[in-house]
């Protein structure tokens, strides 16, 4: 290597270094490749596929079919009817639980207990719920034994079955996210609010909540996206041809019952757009609130 190429080499390296690119940057390559292969490529493939229908009617035929058949387009509303309340309830319940848990000394034990449902997987939860909440399950039988009800409660194979199982699988995730946001707020702020006359509710309303809003918006989005993609529990615990015929069921039927992968791709794209719309709305609302440091000063 001559000295001049060495010179050029270092100067190029310096130029790259100024833009924050150096040898360490190469470490992102595997993940970039992974994202390209597992996410970007299939996404573009699916997008193009959705515009190449096997039926007649031009490139938009799949989308036209979807939006002209109530059996198909109603799945959007059915999914939103599940996902939005589940998300709202999870976030709303996660906040008070997190507010309390941050003061608990054995936080790790409690957290572990709450996280268990994540590790179980949807199908196992669904199986358990069928046994427990089904017409012959312990829950209804115990209530009947105590003469609180006279006939079994219908808590499975309908909307509420899916709703409950979604809450069980989604809540721990929402809770953990929320807990990290709640514990990220300087405890000194609550003390300051208390000494200046704010009651527990006022402290929450005027200090904690405004500082939590940005985090809760993120928790809402991530929870919503999970809940919107509900599939196994909608089939196992719901009424998959009735009120819990969610959009992923429509996509699965198109792909694996009608073998129309182009239609399935189109439904997947529509699903993505709906999710994106909700997420964007939430993020726009979030921007109306304070976003910044959650500590009350330096030091």
């Amino acid at each position, binding site marked *: 290597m001559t000295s001049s190429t060495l010179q050029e080499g270092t100067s190029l390296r310096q130029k790259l270094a100024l833009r924050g690119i150096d040898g360490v940057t190469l470490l992102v390559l595997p993940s970039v490749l992974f994202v390209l292969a597992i996410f970007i490529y299939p996404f573009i493939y699916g997008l193009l596929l959705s515009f190449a229908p096997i039926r007649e009617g031009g490139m938009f035929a799949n989308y036209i079919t979807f939006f002209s058949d109530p059996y198909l387009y109603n799945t959007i509303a059915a999914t939103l009817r599940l996902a939005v309340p589940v998300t709202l309830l999870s976030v709303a319940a996660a906040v008070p639980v997190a507010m309390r848990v941050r003061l608990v000394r054995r936080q790790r034990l409690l957290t572990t207990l709450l996280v268990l449902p994540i590790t179980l997987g949807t199908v196992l939860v669904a199986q358990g719920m069928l046994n427990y909440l089904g017409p012959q399950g312990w829950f209804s039988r115990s209530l009947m034994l105590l003469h609180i009800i006279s006939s079994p409660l219908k808590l499975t194979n309908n909307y509420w079955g899916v709703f409950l199982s979604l809450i069980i699988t989604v809540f721990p995730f929402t809770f953990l996210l929320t807990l990290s946001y709640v514990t990220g707020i300087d405890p000194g*702020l609550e003390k*300051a*609010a208390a000494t200046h006359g704010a*009651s527990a509710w*006022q402290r929450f309303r005027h200090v904690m909540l405004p500082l939590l809003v940005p985090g809760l918006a993120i928790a809402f989005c991530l929870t919503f996206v999970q809940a919107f993609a509900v599939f196994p529990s909608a089939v196992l615990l719901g009424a998959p041809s009735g009120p819990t015929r969610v959009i992923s069921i429509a996509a699965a039927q198109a792909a694996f019952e009608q073998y129309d992968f182009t239609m399935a791709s189109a439904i997947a794209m529509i699903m993505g757009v709906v999710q994106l719309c909700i997420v964007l709305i939430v993020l726009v609302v979030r921007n109306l609130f304070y976003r910044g440091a959650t500590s009350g000063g330096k030091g």
Partner: protein
Amino acid sequence: MQLASMPFNEIRLDRMSRSFGALNALRDISLSIRKGEFIALLGPSGCGKSTALNCIAGLLSTTGGGIYIDDKRIDQFKPEDRGFGMVFQNYALFPHMSVRKNIGFGLKMRSRPKAEIDTKVDEALALVRLQGQAEKLPGQLSGGQQQRVAIARAIVIEPPLVLMDEPLSNLDAKLRLEMRAEIRRIHNQMKATTIYVTHDQDEALSLADRIVVLRDGAIRQVGTPHELYERPAHLDVAEFMGFRNRFTGKVVSREGERATVSAGSFSVSGTVAEDLQPGASAVLAVRPDDVTLSGEAPGGVSVTVEAIEYRGREYVGIARTPDGVEIIFHADDAAAPGSTVSLSIDPARALVFSA
């Protein structure tokens, strides 16, 4: 804006205690604070001074004793029901609220009418000289300005008691001096009653009407800055008050207030701070300012100069006696390092404590 209208005469701590398991962080703290007084709680870290402040604020519950405003017992009250103002070490300003909203927070929580809040916040802004910054967020202010906001937020509710927890420790030296003067000015102007926690004796001496020295969770001495500076009652209070030279030995003679302590190869005379009879082990403590070069006068302590520093008006030197005791002294003229000189100690300003 004045607190003079608040109807109370004194705040009284009656054997206030706090323990954490087996650890007694505070033991039997009894103190009467008159309305309008500026009290400094002074002590090294871990002495319990912040614990005491948090107990008074209600952020920590006490495990014994009581806190009274006149005859009303308040130690079972929640912090929000005590109505005190508090300034925190890290300011604890609400980052999502403007300066105006931060200052008005306490009034808003008390559901005061908006017009009243606006007037009072304007007055408080003027008091801490932040009129132009009302609409800024705390993050846009400097440390000193943030601390002014914190002070304004605490006093705008016209609390019977303002609590300050090392409010100047996050500021640089110059700003600290400025804010010190500000705090005293605001206290005087508001006719507030203030408890101020600090580990800095200069702050305590310059600000307080009375200083409470805490050590290991108990009160060591209470007195005016002058009393504490001139007549510390214990050796550890003396250490805090700048008595940096200490000679350990035995009392060899005593005449009235005057005692002579023999410390190895030399003996020095001082004023007894505790009752000591000849033969008792004792420590004689004296400030470097009161140790001077005595020239050829008799009765001096003979030492070897180790180092000498120029301090502008005078010199500060470190010297060692033949048997290795270090002495810090002040001198008008430079003494050459390595030279042997004689130091004289003013017996009226040297204090003798029991060892």
